[in-house]
């Protein structure tokens, strides 16, 4: 069997894997709101900063 069949099979499997990932992402609603996640990802730091701030404050007290 020629190597080209293996290559074709691999390429199609990879392509289909990405395609399935896309369908799953749409189904989960990842394309429904394209704005909020862009803001949300900046918040992870805020929570930590909040806590450190607080410890400083309590030390002052």
């Amino acid at each position, binding site marked *: 069997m*020629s190597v*080209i*069949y293996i290559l*074709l099979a691999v*390429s*199609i499997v990879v*392509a289909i894997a*990405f*395609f399935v990932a*896309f*369908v799953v992402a*749409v*189904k989960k*609603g990842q*394309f*429904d*709101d*394209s*704005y*909020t996640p862009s*803001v*949300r990802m*900046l*918040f992870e730091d*805020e*929570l930590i*900063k*909040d*806590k450190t*701030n*607080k410890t400083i404050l309590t030390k002052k007290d």
Partner: protein
Amino acid sequence: MGAKTCFHCGLDATSSEIVYDNKSFCCNGCKTVYEIFSANDLGCYYDLQQAPGATPKEIEGKYNFLDNKKIVERLLEFNDENTQIVTLYIPHIHCSSCIWILENLNKLHPSISSSIVNFGKKTVRVNYYTNNFSIKALVKLLSSIGYEPFISLDDYSVGKKNVDRSLIYKLGIAGFAFGNIMFLSFPEYFQVGEYWLEQFKHTFRWLMFTFSLPVVFYCAQDYFISAYKGLKSKLLNIDVPIALGVTVLFLRSTAEIVLDIGTGFFDSLSGLVFFLLLGKFFQQKTYNFLSFERDYKSYFPIGITKITSEGKEESIQVYDIEKGDRLLIRNEELIPVDCILIHGNASIDYSFVTGESNTVSKTSGDKLFAGGKQLNGSIEVDVLKTVEQSYLTQLWSNDVFNKNKEDGFTNLTNAISKKFTITILSIAIFATIFWMFVDASKALNVFTAVLIIACPCAIALAAPFTFGNMLRIFGKLKFYAKNASVIEQLAAINTIIFDKTGTITANKETSIAYEGMALSSTEEVLLKSSLRNSNHPLSRSLYALLQDNDILTLNDYEEHIGKGISATHNNNSIKIGSAPFVGHSSESTTLNTAVHVSTNNTYKGKFTFYNKYRKGLSKLFNKLKKEYDLVILSGDNAGEKENLTKLLPAKTKLFFNQKPEDKLEYIKHHQSSGAKVLMIGDGLNDAGALAQSDVGIAISEDVNVFSPACDAILDASKFNSLYHFIKASKQAITIIKWSFVLSFVYNAIGLYFAVTGQLAPVVAAILMPLSSISIVVFTTVCTNIIGRKLK
């Protein structure tokens, strides 16, 4: 010290003198929210954005209807024994602080497990445990931090709404197939007759065939359906040549690989569908936070308090209200049905209905209409009609609301498609007949080639990209159109009809003129001091107008509902209110709102309230009058007639005392004589006219809060730009016409190859994307130039 602003909401806090934690607040409500946040380590709220909050409102008893299980069940998205999920619409969501605080709700109450904000839709989806917690508690918690959710009758059908994601699936699949087919067909573009290619080309071709199946049968199905519908109603819409092209492409390509005579055009086929869907996707720009389909349901409450015959209060659904029920309407609640006032001081704000901001006072026995908002404490009413039969809601049973405006409108693309399809079909037939005599073996080849190359991809893309981009540009300038066809229809109008109150008048501003005997300074002080005690909106506006004086402590003060106020200080008495109340037999009846004043039982004069028109109104009308017929349809009396005639161009038609149905009929009448009507209005009473008109634009002071069903929403601050928006729409049409010329050039080149019988797959594969992309670039650049001029 200077002016201080509230740390929480940003309002003026100079005079409040509420200071907490070295920060000033405008009111105790704002301070409380701050206290809640700082006690729960949520002080970060104020770091993200300055003064992001809203003052929490008094909601005592307002959400009692959430005790009713039937109502709650309708609102919940998910409900089992321990957890519930609900999505609430919160109009105040406006900045990143809002997202942050609402996604950290679990810090405020342990029963909340998670909450997710959708900023575009201004909703928050909350997951919570039901032990010690309920939806009512959640709503109360949200209200207490200034994020009061808005629950209306519209939410009643929640959970049945399915998000339509089919376009994004189709686009993804078409893109996926397009890319893979391109890869697979690449070898055959350039290497003909090589040994390894000869060996494997069948595998490649059948793979391409497989990839093209979902494109034809799933992604392109809308075009087949639309073409079928068009043909059924004897219309040659743009989807007919597209469907024809796709069918021919697929059949010919399949035949070619089955008979082993060529590679087929699977690459062009999938590319075509992909580009077309891309155009559709681009055009589908929607403003999630705006709703263009609103009817009364979006504003009416979902539940109301009924007083049972035993005198108990009970929450019932609005649809369950029956004639003869006794209802309790609390402060700030909307009256959902026509009814008769029984107890209490009614001060009704009909601005939802008429756009008129002044409240109307009613006394017991008076009839109240659905849609008014009670502003002065609780009242008790007896129901006269059910929700659907009320005066206001009846308007929605009119047929206009079930009509789809787009159906009756032949757009530019479809207009040209008719001629285009006929031309292409005749070229194809003539070329085939020609080749029958010259070389019969090529005849079928030429016939299909013509249909393939003439597939109007570029034509079909011109309008979506132009209008889609225009929609975005307009959106940035605070003119939000519902869809692309609105822009097209806007370019075609020849008559503009304006509502008066709230549309050409500025809502909250009035100009006040005094007529009569001059008031002495002591009288002025007395007047001002008396007005200070009254909450009536007319008193408030008058109070704001009068100059600052020392405030007297009145000996006696009395408010007579629906009549006026009386007060005494030392030996002086004053009466402020309606003409009969102050003892003035009005010889000259004016139609404008007026407040009469008498002191010590002698009539002094009156303050007349005139509407204040938007700045630049007459300038706008003068610009518009050259090209359009201008009409003003007002629901009000003719009191402003004189004023308007002075202000507006002479040929403007003025009509007063128009009922909602009258407005609708007026537009219908003019449309039947060929007028293309643009209606500009604001209140629910214009809803019928907005629906009947060719383009209905709602003017809104705050686009997030209120607008009736319409085709476009225009921010009030941009009212003066109306002329430019219409002009830009016309220019958009010109751009599309030029794009058609451009795509005809491409078609002519392609047809040359097709008719001469030498259309190779590689030519089609180059020509098709090239024409599509150049059209997209052309329209985008042109619309951006127009957009820049708009600013």
